């Protein structure tokens, strides 16, 4: 199994590298989001050039994170990909349906506050985690 062991070691190393890469991009995105959200108010007093630069960097790093996630998914084996795609479908569906209903609640005066996108992000993240756990349990 020598050749196969080498291949598998390559596969494992590649998967590990992709996971670390995704973690680093995600961390960078969180940091740049925090900078874009708080620095204009607390550091540079809403200087337009610096604020635009922070937002552009945040978007670019966000795209980096998306591509890292895509690479990570493609590197997984077929069962892991199936679990991931199930969790993503669930998260997207719940996000779309609840997001529309949430927005509607304010329009039809059932809630008095402005719907926050962060609430939707939290719901989607929780749904995604539930999907992963459910998928993992299904094939255990």
């Amino acid at each position: 199994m020598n050749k196969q062991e080498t291949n598998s070691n390559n596969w494992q190393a590649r998967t590990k590298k992709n996971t670390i890469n995704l973690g680093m991009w995600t961390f960078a995105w969180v940091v740049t989001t925090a900078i874009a959200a708080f620095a204009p108010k607390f550091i540079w007093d809403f200087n337009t050039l610096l604020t635009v630069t922070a937002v552009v960097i945040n978007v670019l790093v966000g795209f980096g994170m998306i591509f890292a996630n895509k690479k990570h998914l493609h590197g997984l084996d077929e069962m892991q990909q199936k679990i991931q795609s199930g969790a993503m479908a669930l998260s997207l569906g719940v996000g779309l349906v609840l997001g529309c209903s949430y927005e509607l609640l304010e329009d039809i005066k059932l809630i008095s506050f402005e719907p926050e996108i962060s609430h939707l992000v939290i719901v989607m993240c929780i749904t995604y985690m539930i999907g992963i756990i459910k998928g993992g349990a299904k094939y255990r």
Partner: protein
Amino acid sequence: MKNRLKVLRAERDWTQADLANALEVSRQTVNAIEKGKFDPSLPLAFKAARLFELTIEQIFQDEV
């Protein structure tokens, strides 16, 4: 889908991790295939067949 993966693996004294390494999948995937909870794709089934030097039909059987 039923399969003889567990028996074939045991005959060679391989652990699930050994087989997973050889097939370039996770150990969880090997476990799920052995238990019949996850059906492998045709390319993965061919890979297993090549590894055990058997035909696909000698490893995997359709449950009718």
